[in-house]
């Protein structure tokens, strides 16, 4: 693997690092808003991956100028436009859910929600146990 390879792949590697930071934020943090932010980073990095692959050295934006030019690949751009929309849709829904969760549980920390649910569940189970006796 030569210097050229490293330079040629550096972009992808950096993007991968970004993705993984995003993913790690999602899976490791317990705050629901933070998770959504992590998800955003994860998705944005994937967008960068797509756009990176469409880039042509010496190319320019795929808007015809009338002159003979090298254009970067427009297709990834189109795909990512769609993906961005999907991303913002997910974010909006996720945040709406967070608001509702806060309303219902009065917390947006996963651990505390879990604790509240467990309490309810085991409380119920215990009550049911009593009922059976």
């Amino acid at each position, binding site marked *: 693997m030569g210097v050229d390879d490293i330079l040629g*792949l550096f972009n992808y590697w*950096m993007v991968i690092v970004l993705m*993984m930071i995003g993913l790690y934020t999602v899976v490791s*943090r317990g705050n629901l808003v933070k998770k959504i932010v992590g998800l955003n980073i994860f998705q944005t990095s994937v967008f960068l991956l797509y756009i990176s692959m469409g880039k042509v050295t010496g190319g320019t934006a795929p808007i*015809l100028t*009338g002159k003979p030019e090298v254009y970067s690949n427009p*297709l990834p751009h189109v795909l990512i*436009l*769609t993906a961005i929309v999907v991303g913002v*849709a997910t974010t909006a829904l996720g945040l709406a859910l967070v608001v509702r969760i806060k309303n219902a549980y009065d917390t947006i920390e996963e651990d505390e929600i879990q604790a509240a649910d467990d309490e309810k569940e085991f409380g119920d189970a215990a009550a049911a146990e009593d009922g059976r006796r």
Partner: protein
Amino acid sequence: MSIAAVIDISLLVFLGLTAFAILKLRALFAVVMLSSVFSLVSAALLVHLDAVDVAFTEAAVGAGISTVLMLATLALTSRREKAPTRSQALPLIVVFLTGLALVYGTLDMPRFGDPQAPIQVHVAPKYIADTQSEIGIPNIVTAVLASYRGFDTLGEVTVIFTAGIGVLLLLAGFIREPEGLRVQTMDHHLVLRVVTKMLIGPIMLFALYVQFHGDFGPGGGFQAGLIFASAFIIYALVFGLENARKAVPGRAVRLLVACGVLLYGGVGFVSFLFGKNYLNYSVLGVDQVAGQHLGILLVEFGVGLTVAAVMVSTFYAFAGQNQPISDEDW
């Protein structure tokens, strides 16, 4: 190393730092600000990578709408993240392995910027070569977006429509009744009010420009819709939600959301009348290019309508919540 590479690398490093800071910080407000910065920087990178349309959108979405929504959420929930209590080992391992797999996958990739990469020689060249003759507009991205892969975009509009409906469904029950509440607008911020009033007109003009200039430069329905919605949001922020609602009532917004999708989907049906397949715009005009042009204009308008309406209604839904943050969470 060329200047391009330097820019590329420095922006990527920038992104890395930002992302890491997001991971580390527990003050959620800072996290939201940083995520907005992340979007800004990645948009700059996108411009650098020739994806101007994408950059446009990413900026509008990431730095604009997402940030506003996240702030609204923070205002309703909590400003601080609690310290993590669980073990972080397993997530770390999983993520590390995933990353390793991806890096492994890069080894056989075509190198960055390689003009001979498979994607540069298979499907895409046709778009670059034929857009002018088949569609007749200079912005290839718009041509692919609205025509060659127009159905994806219909799907995209549907996605945003879904999100709009979803947010309404989730938050609608909690929207406050208008009467009997003290309306707090930024009345005493004279400077703000004046500047905002001054700016709203130009912003809307700008939105129209982006909408109809999308065939020729970066932009299009989606970006225009976002800008249009921004004008509304800033109005609502400064002059109060009630006043904004008076200008455009919630139910009207909801119907506009639907209208955009209907417009897009409806245009597709016209081609049935001429025995063509769905979304073939060529039948709309006297010749193919004219038809495509008109078709793209129409569907972009549909996109813009839906996006703007969804954004406004989503903002209404979030901002209209009647449950302000408690002192404990502030």
